[in-house]
């Protein structure tokens, strides 16, 4: 395996960047395999660590899945978001009215949250809810 991490480019627009320190463009690194329940356990220290993909937490193995967009949203909420999480996520997905593009394609054509992230992917989140 070449690498067990993914480098991603994240963009926020349409006012959504205000929830993320008013920074539109972010570069992040995610592990290839992530907890199936999208929890951050065992991943907060991952970028630099050499923890094997099927890490164990004490003697309890954590079930993993390939990192997908749903995991990415949880990661962004728990690590980059600075305020009002309810304006970003609702019921385990983006709040209705937020558009998601995966490599400049509507995520509805790419499997939405189930899309498996690849190294170098560019994910854009745009709020449609601000101002006319």
């Amino acid at each position, binding site marked *: 395996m070449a690498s067990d991490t993914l480098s991603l480019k994240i963009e926020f*627009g*349409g*006012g959504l960047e*205000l929830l993320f320190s008013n920074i539109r463009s972010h570069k992040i690194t995610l592990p290839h395999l992530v907890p199936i329940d999208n929890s951050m356990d065992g991943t907060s220290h991952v970028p630099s660590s050499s923890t094997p993909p099927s890490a164990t937490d004490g003697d309890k193995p954590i079930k993993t899945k390939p990192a997908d967009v749903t995991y990415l949203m949880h990661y962004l909420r728990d690590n980059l978001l600075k305020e009002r999480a309810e304006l970003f996520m609702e019921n385990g997905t983006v*709040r*209705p*009215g937020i*558009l998601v*593009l995966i490599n*400049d*394609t*509507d995520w*509805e*054509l*790419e*499997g939405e949250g189930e*899309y498996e992230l690849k190294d170098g992917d560019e994910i*854009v989140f*745009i*709020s*449609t*809810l*601000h*101002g*006319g």
Partner: protein
Amino acid sequence: MAPASCALCKMSKAILKRPKTGQQICKDCFFYVFETEVHHTITTAKLFKQGDKVAIGASGGKDSTVLAHVMKTLNDRYQYGLELFLLSIDEGITGYRDDSLETVKRNQQQYDMPLKILSYDELYGWTMDAIVSQIGKKNNCTFCGVFRRQALDRGAAMLDVDHIVTGHNADDIAETVLMNIMRGDIARLGRCTMICTQGEDTIKRSKPFKYAYEKEIVMYAYFKKLDYFSTECIYSPDAYRGHARAFLKDLEAARPSAIIDIIHSGEAFEVREEVKAAQKTQQTCIRCGYMSSNELCKACTLLEGLERGMANSAITERARKKMEASGPAPNNMRSIPFFQSSQPILAVEAPS
């Protein structure tokens, strides 16, 4: 997932799923169908005629920015023969409107259209910042809405245009239909879905994006890399509209056609409303000449309340009676310059 090819040209990779139809289409086909549908909306409703002077109500936000771009594109492509202007209202909100006006000024350069900015301060002698510092954040949207409506008409009169187009989209209209239903406001329900409205002596107003989904407007702006401003108004506590919007977005997530369906419902109500059109007859405001359903127009009533330190006078009946009981308006009170729709209004001096 294998990338689907475009349902229209069958050649390029699809980049968008249309909320209205579910069709998966490529970028070029998307631009083309989006623009063509707006063109059809315009021609079906016969909104313009050759030589019309049209002001685009421009806030710097996504809808009016995309509208300016599309109006220019269609005017060139189909030779509408329109003279286009940008008209912006400066409510005087520091950190919000001053920033978005910068966007409008860039649009003026990009689209090569004359721009007129009319401020509340210039017209009413009050900025929204000053209003909020007097009345607080509770009813300020009432002031802003009434003042903006009249300011747009007056700005249009100054530009001597025949018509104002605004960026209201299908989502906005569906949201307003829902709000009017929830409030039981049947008279407004029919009116809010009309594509074009015209009062006795006011300028025509219309909504070329009446059938355009917000999702497509935002996608259009994104793919065309249009420059727009997207910050929430700092004084906007319109919780009711916020709830209506959240509800509509939930409906749309379950069934994308919900937005158009709601607009069609609103239009269906309109027919029956004409049967019992028992609305107040329009007259002109005795103080400022603007159209009104009472002796004083709403803006003059609100302004008088502000000037006399009784800002609730136009919000509640009780407060209005109290103000009337406290005597006539003082002579030295600031008022709005007289409105004459046929000729440009002279510049207004802002009393200090």
